[in-house]
């Protein structure tokens, strides 16, 4: 039922977005079957903003034109018996745990894009009353999922862009960039002059520039990749909590490692206050130390995910109303939101970077500056 909803969604997406001519040529029974189905918007949306073990490119149907194209991605599992790798195509697009793949004597199923390892002796997944599995566990999953694939793509793009940019400086004899370098330089200078120097200070900022620049461009390009709704983009990497968590933890670790005595003194034994106040403030400050990176993590995750949810909800309206006439309105609103999102993704990358710089600056604060 789920996969059929998904298929019908893409059929309709193609009908509404590409040409009206498509609608005429589409087999009649296909459309009528769509109308019979109950459309579950939240299921669709959560499927879309989640991760996947394969990359769906286009199409909804194996038999009808346009034929569905899904790119299989490698599954890499760390099990009790060591590393297990195979292509996700071995599941034959199954996400309901029906297709069992056997490797090294272990049985694996794909259940809602999570790989489960069946317990020894089991031959198929058994569900309990709440649709949870009884007889399978999740091995450590290091698969190249859609998000990981997208992240590698962003890495390649970033490397290409900035290698070219850096090379353009070397080519010129007066340190003037050309081409992509000319476009990137103002942004790099912006991060330096508006983010690093005001927050960290002239004295220490140079040490943090590589991190801040990498952070900003890494978040930004992945945000942008998430906005582009077709292969090889369209992932929701920067709206994934694991991604934001990792970056927030890196910021936290750097903050702790660059902290000076005054940072701890200020946190644990606030100078210039009566002792009861000091005792009262210390736990709050300690909580604050952890809340900062957590806020970083949630802010980026929530903003990017929300953007995707809004866009998908607007498109979903077409199916909720079951009317083609909603399509123009949906598309118009989607366009409007997408334009705002272009702004939002840049701002979110900027805020993440700016706050990271701010935390570094606080950690580096010296006594006399206060």
């Amino acid at each position: 039922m789920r996969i059929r909803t998904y298929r019908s969604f893409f059929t309709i997406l193609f009908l509404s977005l590409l040409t009206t001519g498509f609608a005429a040529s589409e087999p009649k029974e296909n459309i009528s079957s769509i109308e019979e189905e109950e459309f579950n918007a939240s299921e669709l949306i959560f499927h879309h903003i989640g991760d996947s073990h394969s990359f769906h490119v286009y199409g909804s149907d194996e038999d009808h034109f346009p034929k569905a194209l899904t790119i299989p991605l490698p599954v890499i599992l760390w099990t009790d018996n060591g590393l297990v790798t195979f292509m996700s195509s071995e599941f034959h697009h199954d996400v309901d745990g029906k297709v069992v793949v056997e490797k090294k004597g272990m049985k694996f199923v794909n259940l809602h894009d999570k790989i489960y390892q069946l317990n020894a002796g089991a031959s198929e997944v058994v569900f309990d009353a709440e649709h949870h599995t009884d007889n399978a566990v999740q091995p450590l999953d290091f698969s190249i999922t859609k998000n990981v694939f997208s992240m590698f793509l962003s890495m390649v793009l970033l490397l290409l862009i900035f290698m070219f940019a850096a090379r353009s400086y070397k080519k010129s004899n007066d340190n003037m960039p050309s081409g992509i370098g000319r476009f990137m330089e103002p942004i790099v200078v912006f991060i330096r002059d508006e983010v690093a120097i005001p927050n960290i200070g002239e004295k220490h900022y140079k040490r943090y520039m590589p991190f801040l620049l990498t952070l900003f461009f890494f978040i930004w390009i992945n945000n942008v990749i998430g906005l582009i709704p077709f292969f090889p983009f369209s992932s929701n990497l920067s709206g994934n909590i694991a991604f934001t968590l990792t970056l927030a933890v890196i910021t936290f670790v750097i903050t702790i490692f660059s902290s000076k005595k005054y940072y701890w003194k200020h946190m644990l034994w606030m100078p210039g206050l009566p002792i009861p106040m000091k005792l009262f403030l210390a736990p709050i400050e300690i909580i604050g130390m952890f809340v900062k990176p957590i806020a970083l993590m949630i802010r980026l995750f929530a903003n990017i995910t929300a953007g995707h949810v809004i866009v998908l909800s607007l498109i979903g309206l077409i199916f909720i109303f079951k009317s083609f006439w909603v399509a123009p309105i949906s598309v118009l609103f989607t366009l409007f939101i997408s334009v705002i999102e272009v702004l939002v993704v840049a701002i979110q990358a900027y805020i993440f970077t700016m706050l990271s710089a701010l935390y570094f600056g606080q950690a580096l604060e010296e006594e006399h500056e206060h």
Partner: protein
Amino acid sequence: MDLIKPEIGLIFWTALTFGILLFVLRKFAWKPILGAVGDREDSIKKALAEAENARKEMQNLQADNERILKEARAEREAMLKEAREIKEKIVSDAKEQSKVEGDKMIKQAQATIESEKKAAVADIKNQVAELSVEIAEKMIKEQLGNKDKQLKLVEDMLGDIKLN
């Protein structure tokens, strides 16, 4: 809920990717880019400072020029004044000297004239004396030859003298 449950795989790949990016970009992108931008900014700053220095120097030079010009003008004025004074002095000196010289020449001339006059008068006196002697001689000769003639002669001579 799946949405807020971080997956270990993605954490691992994110950390790895970010690490690689940080390392490679730091070495091959941020360092050269920031270096080039910094160098350019330094050179601009330097150029601006140099321009400012040049402007100041120019100002100094201009002030110097003005001062020198003023001094030169004053000097010229002084020199002109001095020259005028010298000129006037020379002229007045020359005038005085020429006056003295002239006076001296006039006096000399007067003295010469006087002495010439005296000499002339003396000469006339001598000639008159000689003529008187000659007349006296002739008269005596006539008197001695003919009484009448002598008389007549005296008369004639007297008449001559009157004519003179």
